[in-house]
């Protein structure tokens, strides 16, 4: 038989090529399942948290927060926090640390530690405004949001590493999971705002100065991206929620108390 060169008419080595359809079906399906598991585990964590007593929680997380050197500011903040704590249901001692840094923020750690940064004091004009921020962090402790957040973060890490077999490729699923985390956290923030407002009303007898922090942040804000992925809701949403809450519960607004002298004396050198 003579050899006759000839090219094959069709190529059976390449299967059906529908990349876009495959991507949507596979990606969508997997995300749906992972999302469902995440949601269920999140609810399970919320349930489990009710079994952890505040005392045990403090025992576990005592050494977590960064320490700070004692200062006049710290003592003032500590006594303010103590006063506010009487208006909450928190039973364990709260420790306030004053951080000498320009960052305009307040952070809460498991185990009852609140960090207040100097930059925050510079944006606030009254003790009431400061009290609202502290009360907000106390509300997080009271609602045990830090435990919920931590539990969800663990579930997230677990799911992504289980799914992909390595922690590197976990970043692939980050977008979708971040969304779920953010939505959950935005609701918790609004709940903390509401609780802080109640604490403020109990401590001062009115809720004046509560919105000062949000207003000052609103002026600095330059946002290009939509808020779905942020852990905190949009400032305007929070301001509106405060206003509504005030109206519903009939909280009054009176003159505010100025910041204690110990907190206004010096600013951080640039």
């Amino acid at each position: 038989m003579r050899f006759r060169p000839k090219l094959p008419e069709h190529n059976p080595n390449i299967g059906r090529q529908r990349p876009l359809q495959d991507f949507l079906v596979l990606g969508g399906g997997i995300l749906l399942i992972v999302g469902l598991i995440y949601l269920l585990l999140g609810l399970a964590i919320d349930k489990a948290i009710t079994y952890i007593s505040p005392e045990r929680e403090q025992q576990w997380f005592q050494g977590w927060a960064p320490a700070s050197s004692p200062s006049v500011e710290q003592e003032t903040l500590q006594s303010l926090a103590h006063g506010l704590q009487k208006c909450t249901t928190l039973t364990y001692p709260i420790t306030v640390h004053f951080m000498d840094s320009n960052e305009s923020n307040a952070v809460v750690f498991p185990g009852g530690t609140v960090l207040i940064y100097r930059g925050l004091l510079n944006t606030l004009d009254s003790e009431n405004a400061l009290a609202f921020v502290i009360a907000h962090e106390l509300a997080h402790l009271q609602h045990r949001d830090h435990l919920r957040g931590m539990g969800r973060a663990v579930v997230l890490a677990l799911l992504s590493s289980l799914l992909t077999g390595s922690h590197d490729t976990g970043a692939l699923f980050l977008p979708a999971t971040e969304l779920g985390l953010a939505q959950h956290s935005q609701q918790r923030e609004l709940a903390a705002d509401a609780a802080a407002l109640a604490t403020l009303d109990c401590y001062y007898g009115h809720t004046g100065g509560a919105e000062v922090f949000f207003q000052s942040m609103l002026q600095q804000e330059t946002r290009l991206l939509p808020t779905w992925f942020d852990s905190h809701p949009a400032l305007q949403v929070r301001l509106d929620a405060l206003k509504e809450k005030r109206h519903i519960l009939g909280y009054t607004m009176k003159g505010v108390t100025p910041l204690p002298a110990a907190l206004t004396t010096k600013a951080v050198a640039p």
Partner: protein
Amino acid sequence: MSPFIGFFILLLLGFIFGRIAEAQHYQRIAEREQYWMHLPNSSQRDLLIPMQRIDDVKMVCGSVVISIDYFKRILALLRSIVGGPVSSYETLIDRARREAILRLKEQCAGASQIINIRVETSSIHNAAGNGIGSVELLAYGTAIYGLTSEASTPAVTLSQSNAA
């Protein structure tokens, strides 16, 4: 937030450019396969076409490294979770195999046939630790130069070039 944007930009770029690159490559492959059809190749150790005269025998090899685009890599990753044919890698392997054989043929333009061809694949998957997802194909064989015993084969032109 930033991984979200970066991920989709990479995905989009991978999809668009991967598609263009693949289509262009397939077109080049088809043209060259048509052109090189006159040079037969076989994996057997015996001659494919009987020879009147053998002038020269050479070992030739052609190798190629081709990478997959980001989109297809993600698609393959998703596929690896649920299982099934990884069709996004199939075109990669197919292109690489045909390209390697073509490069092999381009190395021995004057030969009348190539026999004893072997094709080897090696994946350069995790070379840099970030899963580049490329594949190397190496084809090697024995090129036979000379005059075939069949008058109608293009070996006539080859013998002319040999004489010149």
